């Protein structure tokens, strides 16, 4: 009897709300500001733009002034092909950024560093503007002691592509450092060296991306210049600041307190940290700020489960890296220090949408016990209704049950 009534009364809605129907209507937020970054200036500008447009908003895009050629191509093409009244590109540096942040937006989407994200969110607070911030972090890659030579080859190639092959390591989801068991580390270093040669050739200057500017180049150089760090270089280490080039560099066990192990590297320097047992890498990761991605190259299902459940990060990828960027059914975004908000695929649409609940009622059936003046009988009925005890309600109405 209760089941039958609960179907009629639409399960969870209390009896006082019968009959009714409800739906969620997605609607645009309004006018959006997208602030993009310099390392993937097209991807990171257009992906949120697509979401904002799909959700029905008008958008202003501010590309990064550190990638001026891309910024100007974006401005020209968007103004040529898209509706100028609704979609605009505003180019410029920090002063333009500041002016934009003084306006009232319905949402701000920011990709970049935590320092600037704080400025954006503080400015947004004045107008109660919701924001999404896509930051970075030190994305670790755990490399288990793989036995098959095929696995070793594929893992090495994927690691190298995800570091040196991705904008020379200047990506929020690039592998920042590696964790490996001591007994496998020599094998791994040998493999890495061999494949660096085969993938990037004898003259890596021609095949590896450039460092974005002199500031970042000297920042990276300083990471290596610390004597205790320099001593741990096992491959590479050379650079040409005028050409904005840094050679793919491998280090084994640089001091954990050095800057290269405390700051996000964002460059082609790859520290390899050795641990006694591979499981120790989980504690290592847990004791550090949450990263945008954690990678693990392993066939050990127990290790995989433990890693996924005991650590927290934007995402976890097994046996590959970077590739989550094109898996559109998975949300892309950070947690804690790596940011908040998620996008890609339908998540981009949702990010720029207000999901508006709409409840409809009929004038038919109105329950007198909803309204004052209150008395004990009405209170009893309500209590029974909340317990879905309809039989009791009937008894009370018939006067057969006293409060």
């Amino acid at each position: 009897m209760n089941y039958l009534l609960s179907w009629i009364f639409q399960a969870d809605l209390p009896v006082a709300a019968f009959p009714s129907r409800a739906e969620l209507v997605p609607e645009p937020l309004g006018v959006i500001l997208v602030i993009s970054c310099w390392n993937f200036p097209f991807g990171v500008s257009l992906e949120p733009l697509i979401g904002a447009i799909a959700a029905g908003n008008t958008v202003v895009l501010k590309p990064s002034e550190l990638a001026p050629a891309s910024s100007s191509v974006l401005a020209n093409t968007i103004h040529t092909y898209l509706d100028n009244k609704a979609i605009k590109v505003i180019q410029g540096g920090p002063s333009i950024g500041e002016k934009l942040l003084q306006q009232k937006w319905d949402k701000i989407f920011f990709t970049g560093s935590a320092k600037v994200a704080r400025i954006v969110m503080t400015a947004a607070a004045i107008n109660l503007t919701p924001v999404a911030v896509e930051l970075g972090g030190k994305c670790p890659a755990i490399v288990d002691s793989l036995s098959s030579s095929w696995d070793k080859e594929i893992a090495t190639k994927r690691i190298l592509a995800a570091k040196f092959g991705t904008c020379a390591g200047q990506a929020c989801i690039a592998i920042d450092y590696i964790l490996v068991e001591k007994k496998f580390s020599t094998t791994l270093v040998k493999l890495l060296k061999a494949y660096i040669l085969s993938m990037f050739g004898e003259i890596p200057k021609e095949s590896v991306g450039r460092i974005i500017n002199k500031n970042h180049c000297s920042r990276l150089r300083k990471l290596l210049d610390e004597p205790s760090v320099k001593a741990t270089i096992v491959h590479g280490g050379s650079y040409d600041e005028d050409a904005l080039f840094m050679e793919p560099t491998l280090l084994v066990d640089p001091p954990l307190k050095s800057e290269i192990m405390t700051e996000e590297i964002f460059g082609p320097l790859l520290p390899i940290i050795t641990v006694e047992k591979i499981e120790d890498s989980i504690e290592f990761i847990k004791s550090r700020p949450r990263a945008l991605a954690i990678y693990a190259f392993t066939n050990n299902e127990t290790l995989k489960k433990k890693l996924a459940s005991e650590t927290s990060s934007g995402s976890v990828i097994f046996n590959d890296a970077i590739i989550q960027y094109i898996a559109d059914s998975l949300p892309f975004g950070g947690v804690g220090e790596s940011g908040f908000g998620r996008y890609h695929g339908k998540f981009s649409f949702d990010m720029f949408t207000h999901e508006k609940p709409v409840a409809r009622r009929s004038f038919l059936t109105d329950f007198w016990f909803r309204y004052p003046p209150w008395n004990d009988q009405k209170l009893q009925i309500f209590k029974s209704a909340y317990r879905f005890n309809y039989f009791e309600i009937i008894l009370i109405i018939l006067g057969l049950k006293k409060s």
Partner: protein
Amino acid sequence: MALDMEGMMKELRGTYASGKPKSYEWRVSQLRALLKIADHHEKEIAEALRCDLNKPDHESFVYEIASMKSSCQLALKQLKGWMKPEKVKTSLTTFPSSGEIVSEPLGVTLVISAWNFPFLLSLDPVIGAIAAGNAVVLKPSEIAPATSAVLSKLLGEYMDTSAVKVVEGAVPETTALLEQKWDKIFYTGNGKVGRIVLTAAAKHLTPVVLELGGKSPVVVDKNINLKVAVRRIIGGKWGCNNGQACVSPDYLITTKDNASQLVNALKSELEAFYGKDPLKSEDLSRIVNSNHFNRLKNLLDDEKVSGKIVHGGQRDKTNLKIAPTIMLDVPGDSLVMNEEIFGPLLPILTVYKVEDSIDLINAREKPLAAYLFTNDKRLKEQFIRNVSAGGLVVNDTILHLAEHSLPFGGVGESGMGAYHGKFSFDAFSHKKAVLQRSFAGDVPARYPPYTSGKLKFLKALLNGDLVGLIRALIGW
């Protein structure tokens, strides 16, 4: 009592790091403890609500205790399902692979509650935080001190205090709390303090949910069951903490030729509910304190609305009571139309055509709720499509809060984020993407050295162009 903020944060982080709040068993035990509080201490809670707001027992039961229990029971019933990872389909571009979205707690969270539904608005978000596996600090509103004390005492007795704490206090304590680094802050209150919370959160890049308010309009059309409509409006306004609710019908809009009918219906039902002397009715909450009483008095005494009061207007300063008051055709720049009323005053604006009400509403900040009473299907669709608000209800008021499958939250000035039901769990969760790839099935075209052949292949692959793929593979 000076609070050792640092010590408290250390303890909470330690408990969270131990993994205890993440376990299903812990979450269930805490949710059950919350239910016990509501079951065994109903009288004490209702008494505190009477003390703070003169809230009638009926309202305390329906809007505070029963709502909280229903939220808790839903979480207990559905928690296993909520905690289960969601499998997602992966595409050709990452083949072979499998993906899932795993819900995990954010960490140590802060819930700042409000004074109007001090029991529900404290515990409903706490239920979400616990269900999602977080540690949580609750700061109840000092403007409802009796309820704040009861919450502190009961949660201190029943909950795992190494992970669930109550910090009582006012501005200094709240400021000290906001200086800490939280993994999420959930705030219910007004826009002014909402901005303070958001600014403090920005320093640590803490994500927030803000449940604010606004002027929730009610559009009343002709050719409806006016008696039922009016009862529902009264129930949603004066019957719900005497208009002191974020989703209270703030003002009405109707056509000029419908106004007098509407006013008469309101007068008649108001008398049926509250008697001829509503200041003496036991069924109306009082105004929470003298600050708000004076604020409302100023709205009434505004010279722009003199002569517009068509019902009520009586006040009792000693008992902090104001009678249900209706004002007709107040000017748009009057005080009462320029701030969220949050009290028993109901302005009615009149328009020539009922469709004009939509423009009137859209000219203002987006409210937390908007209501429409009509039988006209076209007007319904127009309203739903064009009025942006936290939530909409057709032919009733406030009831959408009871539907747990609907998210409850604002947009624009009325807030950001949402909760209730599974949305509460989601509000306090991080949705982690987990992608499993195999070593088998590798695409050499991904790796340097890059060649034009590899580029052709990748373009074909990413475009899902099977023919192009084959051509690239055979080197055509």
